[in-house]
């Protein structure tokens, strides 16, 4: 008789082991998803091949992935800052919505300003709106001990309904034939594309913010305090780290980053505000942040991959009439399998013969 035993590893697994776990998780998720394709009478292998081709098989597709990766990256960067402090900000979706609302408010009211003035103003307003939306759960958490997971989530629903209210009501374009959308932004309120590509200048914003967050987390005292407090709140309190102000700060930053993504989507991708701006980037951002282990560089890579998943799913949606929810299934599966796989980072299984 032999028994399987679990042993804690003395030191964490090296990088190749982690890559192996990542690959294993992806393969397992793909396997389960292809079964789901089979259930609905779709060719499983062909479906996955089409998904991959649709995402990464042409220049057009690769560009499309980058366009979608921009908002996911910004939201995820914000989520990661909060998660570092063990503040569970599930509210990127709502902060994104409020950012879009803030930017639209500026675009509709000050549309005649020249672009060099208007674009930064829109960005700043989106950041402030998103940041304040993030500050609400932060204050509730530190002052009244309200669980931030639930408040951020509820504020998502409320933010989306605010957006709906505005585009169905006061901001509705009078010549939209009843469709819920604002009028098209003026030219100076639209963030343009880089050269002849379809990629907007938001990419530059991602690079700038990404580097800033990386430097902040790695090289500043505040960034260090964030990490220390996140790892052990009691020790941080003992060391007199300003936990309350840290929570407020990360939630404002987190919300501002998601808000800036909302601004870019409204300005660069849609050129107006309409309900279809909400496609769940804020939730994908959580998956990305966790896949990337909260590291800004890995967040870039993971954002691109999950944007690819979205593009690929759109592709098989058209080709094979696969419901759009297929992408969500894969996101959930990848996260779950990776979560389970991380077990092997810290533990190993030993087969031992019983005496």
């Amino acid at each position, binding site marked *: 008789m032999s028994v399987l*035993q*679990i*042993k*804690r590893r003395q030191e964490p697994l090296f990088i190749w082991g982690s890559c192996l776990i990542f690959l294993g998780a992806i393969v397992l998720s793909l396997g389960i998803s292809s079964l*789901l394709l089979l*259930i*609905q009478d779709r060719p499983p292998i062909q479906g996955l091949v089409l998904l991959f081709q649709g995402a990464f098989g042409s220049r057009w597709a690769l560009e499309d992935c980058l366009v979608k990766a921009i908002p996911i990256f910004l939201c995820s960067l914000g989520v990661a800052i909060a998660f570092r402090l063990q503040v*569970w900000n*599930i509210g990127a979706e709502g902060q994104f919505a409020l950012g879009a609302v803030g930017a639209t408010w500026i675009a509709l009211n000050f549309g005649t300003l020249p672009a060099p003035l208007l674009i930064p103003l829109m960005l700043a307003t989106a950041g402030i709106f998103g940041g304040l939306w993030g500050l609400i759960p932060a204050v*509730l958490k530190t002052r*009244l*001990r*309200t*669980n931030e*997971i*639930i*408040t951020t*989530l*509820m*504020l998502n*629903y*409320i933010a989306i*309904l*605010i957006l*709906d*209210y505005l585009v*169905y*009501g006061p901001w509705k374009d009078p010549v939209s034939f009843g469709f819920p959308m604002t009028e098209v932004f003026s030219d100076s309120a639209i963030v343009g594309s880089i050269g002849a590509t379809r990629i907007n200048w938001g990419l530059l914003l991602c690079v700038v913010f990404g580097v800033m967050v990386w430097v902040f987390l790695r090289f500043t005292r505040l960034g260090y305090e964030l990490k220390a407090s996140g790892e052990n709140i009691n020790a941080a309190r003992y060391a007199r780290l300003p936990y309350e102000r840290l929570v407020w700060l990360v939630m404002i930053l987190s919300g501002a980053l998601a808000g800036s993504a909302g601004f870019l989507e409204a300005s660069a991708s849609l050129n107006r505000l309409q309900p279809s701006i909400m496609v769940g980037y804020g*939730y994908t951002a*959580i*998956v990305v942040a*966790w896949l990337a282990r909260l590291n800004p560089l890995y967040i870039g890579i993971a954002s691109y991959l999950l944007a690819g998943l979205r593009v690929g799913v759109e592709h098989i949606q058209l080709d094979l009439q696969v*419901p*759009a*929810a*297929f*992408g*969500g*299934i894969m*996101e*959930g*599966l990848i*996260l*779950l399998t990776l*979560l*389970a*796989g*991380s*077990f092997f980072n*810290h*533990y190993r299984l030993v087969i031992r013969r019983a005496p």
Partner: protein
Amino acid sequence: MTSEMLILLMAATIQSGTPILYATLGEIITEKSGVLNLGVEGIMMVGALAGFLAAKITGSPVAGVLAGGLCGSLLAGVHGLVCLGFQGNQVVSGLALTILGTALANYLGTPYVGQNAPGFYPVPLPVLSQVPVLGPIFFRHDLLVYGSFVAPALIWIFMKYSRWGLGLRTAGENPEAGAAAGIPVVGYRWAGILAGGFLMGIGGAYLSLAYTHIWTTGLSAGRGWIAVALVIFAFWKPGRAVVGAYLFGGVMAFQLRLQAMGANIPSSLLLMLPYGLTVVVLTLASMRQRGDQAPAVLGVNLEPRD
């Protein structure tokens, strides 16, 4: 508002509170065992679809509810596998479960959107339903509502007086001591997750089989998250969960009536009510809480033993 309308509103309150009540009770059982399951929303969605499909195929709503409960347990079992088996982070696993469950229900349910299945309809209880005021409010509902009248009391008795209830609470309050005393702590956590998932699944099945009678996407609309909030509001007590669930049922029913009456308020503002109320209620409950009434090791995984 006439008294007749008020009675109708109260009856609708009970009905819309029922799915939330089942889900809240499920989450209470799970959390009592020390496991935080944030997948309620996804589990409800899967329960709703499973219930709908089983009732459609077998023609029996009872089979539907059972299928909803079992599939709820199944999805909750994934959470158990990740957290109890593989030491995964409970918060993230729960979120992933919500993403997965919601998408799974929308994916598999797409061909059935707009279709209906045999569901539950009101069965007035003899004698009781004739009592003035109370009769129409409480005793002219479907069987699942009557079930939800009994469930909180049964769960309370089970938790407080049975040996299994004690084991479950030990797994959430002091697992080390429990394990030292020979109590199968991990087994109790599994039981908490699966039993809780069953109730959440029933809550979901209620939505498709008794509430809307029709399959649509996004049926749960945040009710799972409201249930998570209500567990805190209820201080982990089944009795208080009843109060919380009917409070929300009331707001949802009231909001629907206002819309139906054509009140001159944009529907998006009315729809905010339950979500805003969740934040308010949760904050009030968190302020009132003396000490920490949550199970002592809620959300913390147990180190596997050699």
